[in-house]
């Protein structure tokens, strides 16, 4: 039986989080009243001229450098023509011949720990289209042009992905990267990151790629994975029956988990690309590139490596704490303030992050120095770890500005390790329970537990059990 291999390439559209649009000063405004962030330029009034946005270029350079992609020091904009209500110019400004960068790679890590290098074909700058809405009026399609002109980067991979899981891992890694770089919120639900998934199947060992089908505008990682699974099975089934199929553009329906044709690529659009005469080429100097390189933050995989190798956290802890830049920054910031790494990692993963429940790290209501004192209570064995988590942490959430030591005191959970205090307690216990003490000395060893219990009760549970044990033992054997 013939074995098939799934081959996938991605085109990922990433919306930049600039203040203004790619070629004019309209504000970016997800969810604003329709057609309130538009201008004569985004509405394509005659005689208006586009002007590139410096930050669109800079953010593109950031992503290019972090993927080791080669920057085209001269890159330029072209017009891609199509006629549709979401684009009043009847063309999109994009980069065809001279994109901002070419080549590079992104390494992905799969669930089994294996790694794979996914090559980048190129990345280009372009503008987003407006939105058309078809279901609020029976007679008309409605057009909202707030999104028209939003700066995009389109990243095109080589066909290096071979499964739904790899596609999912790639999108997740890219999403994490753009968030680390601070160039996009990477939110797929909002459409800030959208994927076209090109899928083909070919017999294993064959170099010939099968006919390719493109699934458009996939809007979640889960759907991307599902689309790959469905589409590869559909294509294999056709090939098994000896049928051929054309290049197709498909739509993925998350409800049914199926793809359906949008239009045949056979009758491919003729976009009539040509250089946009309104926009001179973008020239980028080496010093500008160096400057951006300097500004690059530590990248997610570098941060994770540092957590594992320098801080000696395990794989699981490093993965979670490096997942988000703000979480990682918080962690390293507290380390600098001499927090115990393992205790801090535990506290963040088991208490702080669940408490924030997806909200930003900065929304934590407890000051850093308070967290540090909380951790030092555990580290110095003033409060046992389990008591600290179960009693002191909830109290701290309710009183975020109170010193943890005071809270522990009022909760009566500060461990007493002071030999003087403990031996005084033991003395009292022995004199109040002289009968039992005598029994122990005569060999009735199980009375020991009773005496320990008495001592712990006297200390209101706050004496350190190991110290009490040792002190009682010493006292009884004297």
């Amino acid at each position, binding site marked *: 039986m013939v074995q098939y291999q799934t081959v996938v390439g991605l085109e990922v559209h990433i919306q930049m989080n600039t203040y203004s649009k790619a070629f004019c*000063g309209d504000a970016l405004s997800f969810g604003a009243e*329709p057609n309130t962030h538009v201008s004569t330029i985004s509405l394509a009034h005659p005689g208006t001229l586009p*002007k590139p946005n410096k930050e669109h270029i800079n953010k593109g350079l950031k992503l290019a450098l972090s993927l080791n992609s080669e920057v085209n020091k001269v890159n330029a904009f072209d017009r891609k023509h199509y006629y549709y209500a979401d684009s009043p110019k009847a063309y999109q400004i994009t980069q065809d011949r001279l994109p901002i960068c070419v080549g590079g790679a992104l390494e992905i890590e799969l669930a089994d720990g294996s790694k794979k290098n996914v090559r980048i074909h190129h990345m280009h700058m372009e503008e987003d289209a407006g939105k058309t809405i078809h279901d609020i009026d029976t007679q008309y399609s*409605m057009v909202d042009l707030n999104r028209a002109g939003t700066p995009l980067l389109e990243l095109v991979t080589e066909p290096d992905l071979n499964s739904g899981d790899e596609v999912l891992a790639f999108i997740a890694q890219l999403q994490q990267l753009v968030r680390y770089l601070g160039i996009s919120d990477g939110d797929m639900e909002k459409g800030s990151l959208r994927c076209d998934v090109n899928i083909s199947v070919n017999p294993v060992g064959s170099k010939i790629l099968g006919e390719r089908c493109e699934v458009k505008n996939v809007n979640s990682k889960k759907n991307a994975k599902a689309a790959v699974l469905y589409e590869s099975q559909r294509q294999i089934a056709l090939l098994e029956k000896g049928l051929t199929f054309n290049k197709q553009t498909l739509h993925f329906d998350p409800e049914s988990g199926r793809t359906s044709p949008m239009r045949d690529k056979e009758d491919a659009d003729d976009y009539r690309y040509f250089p946009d005469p309104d926009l*001179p080429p973008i020239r980028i100097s080496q010093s500008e590139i160096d400057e951006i390189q300097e500004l690059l933050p530590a990248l997610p995989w570098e941060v994770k490596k540092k957590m594992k190798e320098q801080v000696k956290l395990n794989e699981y802890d490093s993965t979670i704490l490096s997942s988000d830049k703000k979480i990682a920054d918080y962690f390293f910031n507290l380390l600098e303030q001499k927090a115990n790494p393992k205790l801090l990692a535990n506290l963040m993963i088991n208490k702080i992050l669940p408490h924030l429940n997806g909200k930003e790290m900065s929304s934590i209501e407890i000051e850093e120095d308070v967290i540090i004192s909380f951790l030092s209570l555990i580290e110095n064995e003033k409060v046992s770890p389990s008591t600290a988590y179960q009693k002191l942490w909830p109290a701290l959430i309710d009183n975020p500005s109170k010193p943890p030591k005071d809270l522990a005191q009022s909760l009566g959970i500060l461990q007493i390790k002071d030999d003087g205090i403990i031996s005084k307690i033991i003395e009292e216990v022995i004199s109040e329970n002289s009968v039992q003490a005598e029994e122990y000395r005569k060999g009735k060893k199980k009375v020991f537990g009773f005496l320990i219990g008495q001592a712990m009760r006297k200390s209101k549970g706050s004496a350190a059990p190991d110290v009490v044990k040792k002190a009682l033992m010493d006292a009884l054997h004297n």
Partner: protein
Amino acid sequence: MVIDDALISKLEKLSRLELREEEKVKVKEDLNKMLGMFDKLNEVDTNDVEPLRYVLDEHSSAIRDDVVGEELDNHKALQNAEESKKPFFVVPKFLKK
């Protein structure tokens, strides 16, 4: 390149124009003349010449800082539209792309 009826009909489709028969004849003639001119240009050997994408190629492009500028309010935005239903521009209903 041959300017035949099939090409004219493709161009009509791409440019959303409907030409009358006599216009088609005229357009065919014009296009043939234009292509003739390009054929003439093609006689020059440009193998070692860098393509000139932009006339002011030596000038660095005018680039904006990323600041929000003047926008049109919804009323003004819709004012020049042939048809609108506040706050939207409207177009005849068409199937989803």
